């Protein structure tokens, strides 16, 4: 028996969520007294998973897996899960992981539990807490399946070091080919994405126009943060849709979320409230965001934000 986790890569390097998955899978394997096995596709630094208690990593080197497709990846993972007798497969909540997870579950006849926010418990099956109602509630779900797939919410469990040596085994397996043809992948490079960011700086209509976004961008650059925006801002075309966070936009689960000139409509808060610490800067003391935030400044963003950026530059330099 084993706990298997999928370690995602970007440009041949492991992503942060690979270390979260490794930490989470290692803790579960410890509970169950079974081995933890990592699986990745071509990660150059796969041995780094040893830092998080992983002793065995299977590195797939198939030609068909160079470009991500949900079907081929689900099939490859299913084959490894079977050969490793995995009773649990841990995935992240990235766009790709959430894409392949249900296919993997169907292939394995496994139970699928998405958005997990805590370690599972094992009593007559598996029980895990997952977020639902756009983070306004949690659902304790139980699966009686012999094999289960969990997708772990970003930033929910954290990264825990447990240093050991990871044996990396290169493998080639014949995976099913995709029925989809990937024509083109366009990705911003050199810019941290909302999904991967520890800190997100977000702007709303209070910034008055796209020409003032340097306020958000300068603060984000200083903090190494991703930039985001509220729905009205993306609807007005001030910022691209890909930056829209909220109920119908992207979810945010960062450690720190800084909202500038965002009033905090319920749909916006629904998308960001898994962020651990929320700071709001708004000149309207009645803005609903102040009820959801941990720290607040009632003040003019055009005055406060540049001063905050300067101070942080001096401290973090």
């Amino acid at each position, binding site marked *: 028996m084993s706990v298997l986790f999928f370690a995602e890569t970007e440009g041949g390097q492991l992503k942060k969520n690979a270390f979260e998955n490794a930490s989470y899978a290692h803790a579960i394997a410890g509970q169950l007294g079974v081995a933890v096995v990592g699986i990745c596709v071509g990660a150059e630094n796969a041995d780094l998973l040893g830092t998080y208690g992983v002793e065995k990593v299977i590195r797939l080197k198939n030609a068909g897996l160079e470009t991500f497709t949900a*079907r081929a990846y689900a099939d490859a993972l299913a084959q490894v899960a079977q050969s490793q007798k995995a009773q649990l497969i841990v995935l992240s909540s990235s*766009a*790709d992981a959430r894409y392949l997870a249900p296919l993997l*579950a169907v292939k394995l006849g496994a139970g699928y539990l*998405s958005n997990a926010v805590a370690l599972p418990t094992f009593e007559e099956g598996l029980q895990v807490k997952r977020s639902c109602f756009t983070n306004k509630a949690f659902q304790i779900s139980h699966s009686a399946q012999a094999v289960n797939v969990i997708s772990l919410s970003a930033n929910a469990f954290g990264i825990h070091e447990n240093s050991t040596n990871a044996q990396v085994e290169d493998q080639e397996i014949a995976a099913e080919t995709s029925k989809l043809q990937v024509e083109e992948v366009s990705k911003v490079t050199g810019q941290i994405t909302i999904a991967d960011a520890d800190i997100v700086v977000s702007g709303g209509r209070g910034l008055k126009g796209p020409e003032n976004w340097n306020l958000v961008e300068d603060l984000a650059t200083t903090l190494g943060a991703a930039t985001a925006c509220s729905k009205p801002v993306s609807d007005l075309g001030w910022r691209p849709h890909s930056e*829209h966070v909220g109920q*119908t936009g992207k979810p945010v689960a960062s450690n720190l979320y800084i909202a500038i000139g965002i009033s905090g409509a319920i749909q916006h808060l629904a998308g960001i409230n898994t962020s651990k610490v929320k700071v709001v800067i708004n000149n309207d003391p009645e803005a609903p965001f102040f009820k959801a935030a941990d720290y607040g400044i009632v003040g003019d963003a055009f005055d*406060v934000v540049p001063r905050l950026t300067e101070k942080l530059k001096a401290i973090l330099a």
Partner: protein
Amino acid sequence: MNILVCISNVPDTTSKINFVENDTQFDTQGVQFIINPNDEFGLTRAVWLQQKQGAKITVLTVGDASCEPILRKCLAIGADQAVRIDAVPTDGFSVAQAIAAYAQTQNFDLIITGRESIDYNGGMVPGMLAGILDIPYVTNCNGLEISGTDATATREIDGGIEKVSASFPLLIAAQKGLVEEEDLIIPNMRGIMQARKKPLEVIPPAEETVQTQTVRFEKPQPKGAVKLVDPDDLDTLIDLLQNEAKVL
């Protein structure tokens, strides 16, 4: 083109979230139900295909009779017929299984779902449905063009966009961007009158395999009050973020 649009009946986005029956069931009292927003983006795209390229649209939901008003609304928006699979949804798999069993009796070229429902947020049904039917699928779909029996679609990925092509049958899981919010169709009186005459078929579920069950729901701990910092004392804010919240 034969299109199936799967619809989920969800609480309005501004609903108060409470639970009853020892926190095992969502409290529907005073809650207004709507078409799941992601599903509605998909339905709107389907209606455009129907108007411009010709298509027959079936909308489907898995649920009890209380879901019929939203199916009627879908018919008023432009769907041609509605199907309600008469089962109370338990988990993503049983819903996917019920829809798959129906879809296998029909000949759909294109199946559209939302990327996830805004209540349980599982994002399970589209992928499981595609997996059971063994057809290609595109999730987080924010663009779709059809030419004959070929489709090109775009998927939002972390930090970008992926463009894919496939042939029918195809499943897409819709999100905002497939159409914009201002494109959503508000039914007019003619549509509402026509919807009353359009067929709404109720069918029993096929075999049902429940894989996961709800033990109970929990609400998050109530949050403490916001700590307000004077705009002229930003050092205090930085100190709180560094030493109290420990996020810098």
